[in-house]
């Protein structure tokens, strides 16, 4: 970590204080995904074209209003990455043929929830990486099919209650490791971020913007509606996800994974879980030590292998 890159973003005060993404959208109040998106949008800027997969953020643009200062194309749940392919290829063709000025070019960005990114859209995304598509893929990961009422998805964590896992043990499966799935394709850049760590986020977007090729920004997106907590706690829960080690902030670049924020003294997962209604059944009527332990051991195991 000697060769620290030059960055514009060292402190909170370095971040923009006015924001590019328009307000007035239909996202839930306290939406952690929107928080991450507006932070990202500030750095990527308005010379951008967002290709949107079906999910909560389908409703960012509802006729006749759009929050985007740049452009946006709504596709479908399975094929946003293919939409990015079509747009990128068309822009390249126009540039090659000099039918478009270079300054009319845009950063092509996919915007997708976890339902699409971890599931239905994965095939199109994997293929875009095969083709080394020059694009940024933003996944706002609220760990369930949020837009339809938080059914479990491939991103749902172990033991979480969702509307399709309401039993006493919650979701029996485990969260899929999308970071590693992406990294296995050897793309240009993969990073986890969270809106509650905006400096870390800004640096990563800054770095991603300096690169070309497939780049993933995987943003854990605390979701008051789906995770069942008071909207005012969104940032706090995001910070706890990092402090408990549940959401490691890291990046993959040049074949190496590097953690960008090491929780010095990791808090117990309790601190994160007990703040959210979706984990209530782990504490009431009685504390479910077995499940809570499983979650803690999982986190401990992860960090025991992290050498920095």
């Amino acid at each position, binding site marked *: 970590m000697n060769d620290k890159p030059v960055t514009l973003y060292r402190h909170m005060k370095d971040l923009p204080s006015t924001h590019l993404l328009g307000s007035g959208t239909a996202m839930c109040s306290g939406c952690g995904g929107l928080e991450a998106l507006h932070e990202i949008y500030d750095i990527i800027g308005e010379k951008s074209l967002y290709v949107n997969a079906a999910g909560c953020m389908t409703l960012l*643009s509802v*006729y006749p209003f759009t929050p985007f200062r740049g452009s946006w194309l709504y596709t479908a749940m399975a094929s946003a990455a*293919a939409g990015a392919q079509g747009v990128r*290829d068309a822009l390249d063709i126009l540039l090659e043929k000099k039918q*478009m000025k270079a300054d009319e070019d845009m950063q092509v960005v996919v915007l997708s929830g976890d339902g699409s990114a971890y599931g239905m859209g994965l095939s199109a995304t994997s293929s875009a990486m095969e083709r080394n598509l020059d694009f940024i893929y933003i996944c706002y990961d609220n760990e369930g099919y949020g837009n339809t009422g938080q059914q479990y998805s491939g991103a749902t964590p172990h033991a979480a209650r969702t509307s399709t896992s309401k039993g006493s043990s919650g979701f029996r499966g485990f969260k899929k490791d999308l970071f590693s799935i992406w990294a296995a394709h050897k793309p240009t850049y993969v990073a986890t971020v969270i809106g509650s760590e905006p400096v870390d986020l800004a640096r990563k977007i800054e770095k991603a913007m300096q690169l070309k090729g497939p780049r993933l920004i995987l943003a854990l997106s605390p979701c008051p509606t789906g995770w069942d907590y008071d909207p005012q706690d969104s940032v706090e829960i995001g910070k706890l996800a990092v402090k408990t080690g549940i959401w490691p902030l890291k990046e993959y670049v040049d074949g190496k994974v590097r953690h960008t924020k090491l929780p010095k003294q990791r808090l117990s997962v309790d601190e994160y879980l007990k703040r959210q209604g979706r984990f209530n059944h782990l504490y009431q009527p009685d504390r479910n030590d077995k499940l809570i332990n499983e979650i803690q051991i999982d986190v401990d195991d992860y960090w025991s292998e992290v050498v920095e």
Partner: protein
Amino acid sequence: MNRVLLTGNGAAAWGARLAQAEYIPAFPITPQTEIIETLAQWIDQDKMTARLVTLESEHSMITAAAAAAVTGVRVFSATSSQGLLYAMEMIYTVSGWRAPFVLVNVSRGLASPITLEPDHNDVLAARDSGCLQIHCSTCQEVLDNTLIAYRLAEDPRVRLPVIVNLDGFYLSFTREPVLLPEIESVKNFIGEYNPENMRFRAHEPMSHAVAVLGGAPYSYFRYQTHLAVENGLAVYDELAKEFEQQFGREYGVIENYFADDADYVFVMMDSFATKAKDAVDKLRATGWAIGLLRPRLIRPFPAERFRTLLSGKKAVAVIDQNISMGMGGVLHSELCTALYGQPQTPEIVASFIGGLGGRDITVEEFFEIAKSIRHADEINQTPSPRLLYTETELREIRKLQSLANVKLHGFGETS
């Protein structure tokens, strides 16, 4: 102009090449694959300037096609059968983007059971999508109508995807003489694609294909797409006239083969319709007043034209190479809808379903169809819909079933 032997697939590829398609998202599927292979080879040999990208599915292929079209380049793509159905979500979606591009569909029957040979249930599944459909019966038509399709798709009164349909095997792998127009004259006919303000540029932000809340705005956008599809009829007329002036080949919205003075009329689409022409020739040789009407455009459906052309006819036989399970032939239903309650409308509009999965329709069957509608007219009673199937064919399937160890007890004839 050079007259050469080309397959239907070759003709489609030439259409894309002459139209100077700039972007070709692709995915292989029999019997279409030869089209994208041909284009890929031309691009490799620098005979064509375009970017061909193989996506991982037809769903992605159509997404990329339309995304590129709305960014402002000329797009060609091709598929068939299961591929078209796999893409169906996007086929319906991208018409709403008002994305003009040309998609060639090489018709092939749908699973199950899976097969390779043609019928039209694949392309008719896209009937209500907002894509226009041009159906071809010769390789020449495939080439010429691919060119016309670009004008139609890009016309400001339409601005929609256009599907050009040809039958697998019967056209896709069959060579026929095709006149290849010179590229300069095609350039002259098609011109450059002008997306006007429907494109993505950094300094002209556009949020496209957005959601709506409420039925009224939704209905507005959907009706507008419907009106644009309907405009296709008059625009196709204009383009066909212009095409004829420039290239000398005539394309009507409905091909009329000796139907004007006919009492009896066959109605069918795509390549099997040339078999009906053969039957018309032979029937006429023995004194029949019979003809053929073949709709080239299925969407928009030329209802008014059919009313005029069929006015005063004694009887009509619609031969559908498709089947809407639980209803029957799609073209038959559509034609009846167009004709019902109109003055002078033929009283007999009989339905025949045949040619599914490439089952041949013999000239003798056309004779028999003609006879049965003449008889229906004489007794003034519309016959029940008929599935073209023979005793020999049923005997053959019984043999296959016995090889498959299917217990045949319980069906009428053998118990």
